């Protein structure tokens, strides 16, 4: 019996049990359209790559990290100084998170502007919005884990924001904090969110998100849909995958370089009784929110300013989530207003972010 035959038999054995050949067949036949805008197709897989890096470096960090009031800051100092190459691992985890969020935003706006969320891709968009939300919560919970002055104050502010939502707000704050105030319990709880609860949800949502994309195929730019032009396409396997791998390699190169030259700092352990340090700032992707809260007046008419701000943000978010149903025009319509709204949002967020840095 030669090797080929054995291999074929093994394959048949697995196929009988798991029916994998259907998936392989699908991947062999999958095509990716090629056109002026196909560069945006790469954002999805780069997010997956960075997410994978987060998972692996996260597994590694958890071997040393201790999520308690007394030990958290010390254990990170230990990772940075004692664990072999620990500083690089932490730095990659830190930077890969930022890269991932940045590309998530690019991915999001490319889909928004191209209107790829339209029928039949509404569920893909909505699962994506949840993925965005979870990614941001990942960032927010991870920020506290080093337990230094900055992260403590940022967490106090962040977890206090929901409080201004009428009725349910106070319970959200308590749920996040594990009590009335931010304490050591909050740290332990955030660790639980970060390494246990959120990962479960992100994997489930990711599975749905990717399944929807495979089910519906890649969305085409409007120009092609309109003219009914024939689109060139590239086989997914192996041509497109090879191209993706080039992008991945370049990205990993940049990531590791940045991680080595700009490792995140670690301040002294947070003191619950100390006044907030000057210049507290959240992670860059929350800066626009931070600035909005800072400039909002304390009172608008008779209502608490923050309540107004939070409710406005909540409404904006709901609109954003239901975008495919608000803009439910047939695929060939351009939807100029929606495009303009996308650019306005981008300009607003960038302007607020820059302002907060001044």
């Amino acid at each position, binding site marked *: 019996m030669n090797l080929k035959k054995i291999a074929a038999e093994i394959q048949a054995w697995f196929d009988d049990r798991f029916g994998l050949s259907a998936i392989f067949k699908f991947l062999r036949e999958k095509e990716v359209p090629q056109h002026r805008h196909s560069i945006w197709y790469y954002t999805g897989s780069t997010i997956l790559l960075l997410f994978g890096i987060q998972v692996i470096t996260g597994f590694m960090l958890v071997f040393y990290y201790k999520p308690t009031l007394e030990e958290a800051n010390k254990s990170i100092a230990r990772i940075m100084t004692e664990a072999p190459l620990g500083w690089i691992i932490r730095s990659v985890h830190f930077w890969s998170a930022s890269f991932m969020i940045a590309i998530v935003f690019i991915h999001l706006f490319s889909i928004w502007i191209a209107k790829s969320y339209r029928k039949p891709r509404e569920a893909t968009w909505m699962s994506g919005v949840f993925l965005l939300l979870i990614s941001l919560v990942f960032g927010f919970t991870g920020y506290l884990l080093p337990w230094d002055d900055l992260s403590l104050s940022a967490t106090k502010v962040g977890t206090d924001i929901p409080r201004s939502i009428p009725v349910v707000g106070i319970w959200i704050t308590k749920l996040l904090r594990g009590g009335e*105030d931010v304490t050591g319990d909050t740290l332990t709880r955030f660790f639980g969110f970060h390494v246990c609860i959120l990962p479960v949800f992100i994997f489930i949502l990711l599975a749905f998100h990717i399944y929807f994309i495979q089910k519906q195929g890649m969305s085409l730019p409007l120009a092609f849909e309109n003219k009914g032009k024939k689109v060139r396409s590239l086989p997914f396997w192996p041509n497109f995958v090879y191209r993706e791998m080039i992008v991945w390699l370049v990205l990993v190169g940049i990531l590791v370089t940045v991680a080595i030259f700009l490792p995140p700092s670690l301040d002294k352990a947070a003191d619950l009784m100390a006044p907030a340090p000057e210049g507290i700032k959240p992670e860059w992707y929350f800066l626009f929110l931070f600035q909005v809260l800072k400039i909002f007046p304390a009172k608008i008419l008779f209502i608490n300013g923050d309540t107004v701000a939070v409710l406005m943000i909540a409404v904006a978010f709901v609109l954003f989530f239901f975008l495919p149903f608000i803009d439910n025009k047939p695929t060939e319509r351009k939807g100029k207003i929606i495009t303009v709204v996308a650019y306005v949002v981008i300009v607003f967020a960038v302007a607020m972010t820059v302002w907060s840095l001044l």
Partner: protein
Amino acid sequence: MKLKHSLFSRRQFLNGLLGGWLGALAASFLYPVVKFIFPPYREPDKVILPFSDYEDMGPNSVRNFPWGSKPGLIKKEDDGAYLAFVAVCTHLDCNVVYLAEQKKFFCACHEGWYDENGLNIGGPPPRPLRQLIIEREGENIIVKREGVE
């Protein structure tokens, strides 16, 4: 099947019964879960501090004390009276400092200002700082919440 004067059929009745029972069952599982994740409230009713620790304070100065897991501040007025504050910003919960030269409390998180009596005078804070009642009892200072014996 439906009896003559009945409002619903036997099937509806049984479905309602089953549904109600399942709902009650789910609630009985959910209740302990919800109960468990919200820890009991922990703010102290009062704290007792030795007076000797605060006796030597100069006028227009403050000193820390722990108010549960939050910082508290005892402030000595120019006339020698004592005030007590919860040193937590009423905007979004950051800890504040007292700047003695300016006679103001300051919150660095979003640049919130309070005057020397804790009144919010600038920036986003919507309310004055929370004041506590401070009493002298022999060798001790007692700091307590409003309405506590």
